[in-house]
């Protein structure tokens, strides 16, 4: 377990070698009117890995994720996914929203199948697929419930199932667990690790929780406060074969948490 933490000043993004960059973020800057949200971000994301964006509130994590998703246009720079430049949302990327973004008037089944419905897939086919993913996230039996009948944790699983159902290569998750209570959150983190393991997809994940980031990530990108820039990249290299509880008390794990905590502490009020 080695920590690849580079001091801020001599950090050079170009030097970070990646093997199979599915997503390339190239010199992305973003201004909202006079607010500079992001300043020339360069990043690469590999297949089968989970990368976390971590940084103080307002540093542009959501903005970057939405630019990758094609939901927000960048002011300059470009996003390349699977070798093609992004101009808008595409079927190879799926977004999981912090507030779940479930349609309150639709059943779990319809919510999960919504991405397919928009593609024009026939009802029978899309329900079949939706059912499969509902099962995969452990919600079988809840197909005909409405979102308000579910707990926060269950709602987010619907959101994740919906993202999986369209079979995208890249999953973009914006603080997916922040509305879920602490105790369920741990379970989720383990579920997420299992999903990363099972599906060979690229996960880009945003969180506020240092522990969560260290626990689930293959790589952590630290962003500086506004305007957001990459301030550090850390590879926790945690041995996933160990028992989750052992991981959480492993000194290596705790060192990384501590290091990030020290790095971010001066941003707190």
């Amino acid at each position: 377990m080695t920590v690849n933490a580079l001091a801020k000043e001599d950090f050079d993004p170009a030097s970070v070698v990646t093997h199979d960059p599915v997503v390339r973020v190239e010199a992305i800057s973003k201004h909202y009117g006079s607010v500079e949200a992001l300043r020339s971000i360069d990043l690469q994301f590999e297949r089968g890995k989970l990368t976390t964006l971590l940084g103080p509130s307002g540093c542009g994590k959501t903005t970057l994720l939405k630019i990758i998703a094609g939901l927000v246009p960048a002011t300059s720079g470009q996003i390349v996914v699977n070798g093609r430049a992004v101009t808008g949302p595409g079927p190879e990327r799926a977004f999981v929203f912090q507030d779940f973004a479930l349609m309150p008037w639709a059943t779990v089944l319809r919510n999960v199948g919504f991405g397919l419905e928009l593609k024009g897939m026939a009802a029978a086919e899309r329900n079949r697929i939706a059912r499969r993913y509902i099962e995969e996230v452990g919600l079988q039996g809840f197909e005909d419930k409405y979102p308000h009948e579910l707990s926060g944790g269950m709602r987010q699983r619907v959101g994740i199932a919906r993202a999986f159902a369209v079979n995208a290569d890249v999953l973009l998750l914006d603080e997916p667990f922040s509305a879920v209570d602490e105790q369920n959150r741990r379970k989720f983190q383990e579920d997420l690790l299992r999903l990363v393991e099972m599906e060979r997809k690229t996960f880009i994940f945003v969180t506020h929780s240092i522990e969560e980031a260290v626990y689930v990530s293959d790589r952590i990108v630290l962003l500086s406060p506004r305007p957001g820039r990459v301030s550090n990249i850390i590879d926790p290299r945690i041995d996933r074969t160990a028992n989750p509880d052992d991981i959480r008390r492993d000194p290596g794990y705790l060192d990384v948490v501590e290091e990030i905590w020290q790095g971010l502490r001066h941003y707190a009020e």
Partner: protein
Amino acid sequence: MSVMSQDVKVVAPAATTREALRLFAERRRSFWVVLSLAVLFTTWEIAGRIPISFAFPTFLDTLAAFFEMVGDGTMIRAFFLTLQPLVLGVAVSALLGITLGIVMGLSDRVEWLLAPVFIVLQAAPMAALVPLVTFVYGIGLVAKTLAVIMLALPVIVLNSYKAVRHVNPSLVDMCRSFQGTRRQQIFKIIIPDASPVLFAGLRLGVAAGFIGVMLAELLITPTGIGDLITYHRSVANYAHMYAAVAAIIAASTVTLALLQWFETNVMRPEKRRS
């Protein structure tokens, strides 16, 4: 890592102009206000000149009639007469309505007894009842004030009642946990916390009061602005009649806008979410 796109997007000048226009259109509300007023008045003027009816004056005639009436004092006197029942009625409705509303909000029994009555009164077309007032209260100020109250009171009562029912329960709990008495709870927590909504109810009451006073002046006896409208109609001074109608609508709009301004800038309901 390949840094291959340092290129800043080159935007065509045409697009920038269009963008600038769009931004202008979106940002400058006052521009649209002026433009839509101009369009309205021009259409009015043209329609009046055709004319679409002998009873339809042009905008300029109406404007002239307005200044004439302001100049010779009739407009001011008319507003003076119209505002009397309005101010009185709204004041009575405010006092009575806020008190009743608060009592309804505080007591389940009073709520049970009174809430349905006011719900019915608010939903019902009270205009039908305005002429009845004459039978009991005659034709003077009292009758008109009563008409204003009939329209304004239910709105104020129901809003005050809602305001009290929606007081932040944890503030009430807080007061109880410091052994506040019921009196302290009402005067130090409930009324202050409800005050933005109480005030909003008052504003709606004023709007209803304007409707009430116009109904009273058109249905009970013509006085004030209502008299200007009926009299000038009966002698075919349609421009004057239009001017009177426009004046009362403008007056109510300005009054309500001022109240709204007061509400958002002084009561600051948005800042109350602590």
